[in-house]
């Protein structure tokens, strides 16, 4: 995998006159796992959405390999896999269909392995609407993990997961950064995350 670099330069965001965050700068590169830590309502989600280019910041910019993401959005999205608060799954389709409608390129074997790791193999052909919250979350995580993209941006990936799944997710993230990937996750808990290399504390 090529070396990649994500730079964030003095981001500032207001929502209806409330300052959500300001002066956020950092730089991460291949092999980094950045954990964004903060209380509920501290602006983690807004920051993550800004990094993904979904939300436009009032000031500052996000650079991927030294090019502003506004200018090379498609290049950036070719490298980015994102999981937000919402799982992005269509509840009328099965787990398998949701993972394979093909917005990302995936290899079947890798995907099966991930599904197995999250213990979802038996549920492969059940509809998303029949899964529990945790199972849906794991499905959405499988999509990110089995995508072949170097940058993973995960909003609260640890919420709703049982301990087995958390350790499997940690394994996956560990593997990913060891092979030159970049991971950004957010959490509102203090407990340390095994694979963390950098931490960003936001909110007071």
């Amino acid at each position, binding site marked *: 995998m090529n070396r990649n670099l994500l730079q964030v330069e003095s981001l500032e965001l*207001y*929502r*209806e*006159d409330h300052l959500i965050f300001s002066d956020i700068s950092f730089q991460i590169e291949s092999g980094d796992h950045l954990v964004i830590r903060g209380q509920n309502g501290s602006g983690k989600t807004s920051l993550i959405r800004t990094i993904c280019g979904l939300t*436009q910041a009032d000031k500052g910019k996000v650079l991927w390999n030294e090019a502003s993401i506004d200018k090379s959005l498609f290049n950036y999205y070719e490298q980015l896999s994102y999981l937000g608060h919402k799982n992005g799954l269509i509840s009328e389709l099965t787990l398998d269909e949701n993972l394979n409608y093909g917005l990302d390129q995936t290899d079947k074997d890798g995907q099966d392995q991930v599904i197995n790791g999250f213990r979802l193999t038996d549920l492969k052909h059940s509809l998303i609407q029949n899964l529990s919250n945790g199972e849906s979350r794991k499905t959405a995580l499988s999509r990110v993990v089995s995508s072949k993209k170097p940058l993973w941006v995960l909003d609260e990936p640890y919420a709703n997961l049982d301990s087995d799944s958390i350790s499997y997710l940690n394994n996956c993230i560990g593997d990913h950064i060891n092979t030159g990937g970049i991971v950004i996750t957010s959490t509102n808990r203090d407990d340390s995350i095994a694979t963390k290399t950098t931490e960003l504390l936001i909110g007071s």
Partner: protein
Amino acid sequence: MNFKRIYKYGSPPNYFRLCLKYENWFTVPGFLLIIIGCYGGLFLAPPDYQMGDAFRIIYFHVPSAYLSMSAYAYMALAALVGIVWRSNVAFSVAKSIAPFGASFTFLALVTGMLWGKPMWGTAWVWDARLTSEFILLLLYLGYMLLHASIREQKKADRAASVLAIVGVINLPIIHYSVVWWNTLHQASTISKLSSPSIAGEMLWPLLVMIFGYGFFFWGVICRAGATELLKREKRSNWVKEYVEEHQS
């Protein structure tokens, strides 16, 4: 014209100062022209040999109708500039044009109906230009309602701007489909300036009124746009400085 200059004058504090400085260059001539036009139209111009004194309402109807259409075009232009350059100035101009444009549209509709009463015997006739004026009012209302229903200012600006631009693409189509559908209105009164169909002494007050309305409109937009900008930029330093300057 280079872009640096546009950026310089398009920056919020500069725009704000320019507006306040030149506001009166529009408002004062606007008022004067409207007064002259009113006098000329209501007293000097001879009564029409067919319509009598009733025709004098064209001195209000025609300028309002002109302005209502062109104001929509200006609004869409400002919206486009706002979207392309993400300019808060352009968005505030677009937003402040909307209520005035809607008012002039409403005025054009009401005066048109008042004119129609003696002319056609009924206040409302389904004629092409009145109808497309009504559709224009709906477009303005759509813009304003969409802007008001999205709580986030920046998002509301961009969404409403998309609507304004789509509206301006559609406006000629709507207009011509309505014209084609039914034409009862008398042919445009001054579109052929070389051989105007109305007498010179009737025409000049109309032209004066049209210019007066235009100047007045821009004067009002200067002030409204500047106020809107002040509200939006209240966090920035130049507003704080401005307020401190003017508090004492």
